[in-house]
């Protein structure tokens, strides 16, 4: 019983050490580019959604025309920057 238990514990420990240490031996130092790209795409989606919400607020009458144009331009500029960054990465 105790030997079985020791085997289980040793196996569990080895598995943990192997799982944690492997990337230190096999991995790369640099952050993979597609990982940054994914984050930028996520931000782009959120900004697009914000534009849609802004348009709705404008049509309901919750936002003045001046405010609508300014905010929409700000959001569009932000998206343009993100798209440029995505292009640069790829």
């Amino acid at each position, binding site marked *: *019983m105790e030997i*079985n*238990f020791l085997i*289980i*514990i040793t196996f*569990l*420990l080895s598995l*943990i050490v192997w*799982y*944690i*240490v*492997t*990337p*230190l031996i096999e*991995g*790369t*130092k*640099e*952050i*993979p580019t*597609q*990982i*940054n790209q*994914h*984050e930028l795409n*996520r*931000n782009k*989606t*959120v900004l*697009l*959604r*914000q534009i*849609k*919400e*802004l348009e*709705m*607020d404008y*049509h*309901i*009458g*919750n*936002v*003045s025309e001046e*405010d609508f144009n300014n*905010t929409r331009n700000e959001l569009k500029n932000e998206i343009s920057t993100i798209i440029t960054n995505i292009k640069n990465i790829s």
Partner: protein
Amino acid sequence: MTPVLGSISLSLALGVAFISILLFSLFLKKSDYRFFIAGWRATVVVSALTILATLILLYELLLSNFDISYVAHYTSLETPTFYKITALWAGQSGSLLFWLFILSVYTLIVLYQYRNSYSKLMPWIIIVLVFVQIFFLILVNIVENPFMPTDADFVVINGNGLNPLLQNLTMAIHPPTLYLGYVGFTIPFAFAIAALVTKETGSVWIRSIRRWTLIAWLFQSGGIILGGWWAYQELGWGGYWAWDPVENASFMPWLTGTAFLHSIIIQEKKGLLKTWNMVLILVTFTLCIFGTFLTRSGVMSSVHAFAVSNLGPIFIVFIVIILVICIYLIISRLPYLKSEKRIESFTSRESGFLLNNVIFITICFAVFWGTIFPVLSEAVSGDKITVGAPFFNRVNIPIGLMLLFFTGVGPLLAWRRTSKDAFIRNFSIPIISGIAIFIVCLIFGIRNTTLISFPLTAFVFTAILIEFQRGINSRVTRFDESFLKALQTLIARNRSRYGGYIAHLGIVFMFIGFSGQAFDTELEFALKKGDSKIFDGYSFELVSIDPVERPNHIAWIAGINVWNLEKHLVTTLYPEKRVYFHLDPNPEKRQPHSELDIHTTIYKDIYSIFSGVDIEKQIAYLKIMINRLVYWVWFGGYVLIIGTMISLWPAKEY
């Protein structure tokens, strides 16, 4: 062997958690991505080991392994299987492990959600999550180990069994729901700390945590409602909220969390309130830890505190550490937290949101003060002065009504400023409906607080309907849709906003329910079998007193026919008087308990409590309460949950 494996898992998890912090520190110092991946994996291991330990404890509970002290304390051979599972969070060490289990599951979700993306915030987010895990791992490893062997020099044949008050379906679901809320706020907290450390205080972190905050808030709301429902049907005092310290402990982070949910909209849309948002989420998390401290430390006596321990000082140290870190970070990052714009007009939606925030915080402060006052008074004067429900009601009812008013005002205001025409157009119908209900209340002779609350609920209800109508009209005009199609698309395409309005409707319904308390009545009386008693428009006839023996208790069931004054049978109620562990040779271990029965309609509840029984004389001692409009509290709760779930539902990708 298995319990030892549980203990070892927890010890290993603590060790690996420190390794994880070390690996992330190396990554931040050397910018070597390999350390990030290794740290990420170490965090996965910490969470996996914690989950393994929790599953092992669950297995031992189901197996009734009384060699483990926790199992012997909170279960017995007679405990039904379902309650053996719920015993996992019934005691001190089990509930701490359960806290850690939920945090580990959340951590795994965050890790896998962002596995293909990287931002500057990520290492710090994980460090904060692991830091919180370390605190709870220290507790379950050193202070309250759930795998401690039973301290007895004989074989334990049977355990103590679960507290009868906890043997209730609602109580089985209530703690995990509340814990999912408490622990859930750790995620936005981690994002906030990461944003402060990396000086990335813009809207990126806000966008990332909106859904997480909503998830935590949903569970916190659900947990509070379930807690109220449990108190109402189990504790037998006829109410659902007693301003008990533990209830308050769950209510405070809910208040600040709700304020946060509203104010992040302002930051996202207008770049305002950056410092305020940081403070709110940091306070919310600290209050969550404070809530766990109140429930688990035994520092306050409460109907909800099922554990007494010496955990208090450790929790206080942890809270102080969190506060010091948060205050330092906020002060040092103030230049990065300056708002890009200013609030331009008092009649803007931004102002409405801010006022609403201030009210939430005022209520939170009042509740906090009332909750800690007994401890403070004891520390200062030596006398424990308890602040009861009258204090909380006197302070919070007027502020709560103001909050209700602003719930209606906010959506009617435009961003930046509301023109005079828009003001008149948007507010006239809600104000007229409020005045109409006020007059109706006067006609019906109502002269209590409901004279204000009913008109306010009418005002807010109409304001929300108008907001829906404006959205529908906009779609009908722009896209030539039918009314129903426009309603459907409106909600489907703007889930976050209209889900929020539905949640507001839930709050309105709940306020209707709260208002009903002003009309409640109650009577205690003894009734001989065959006799009846008339009370508040009903006749209560005792038709039977039957004994029943069940696996872990014996019960006397009173059969009460309830007739209305027109001699129609309304219902038959069956409240029970139970004695748990009745077979235990030690009479002190037998626990009496009243299981009540309620007849519910949308107007009123007939609430019956079987307080005592004289079998020889066939007399039942009963308490009957007629509670008005309670149904609306639970109905409002459902609507609130549904609204929040609509808000949470993933929106269409563009």
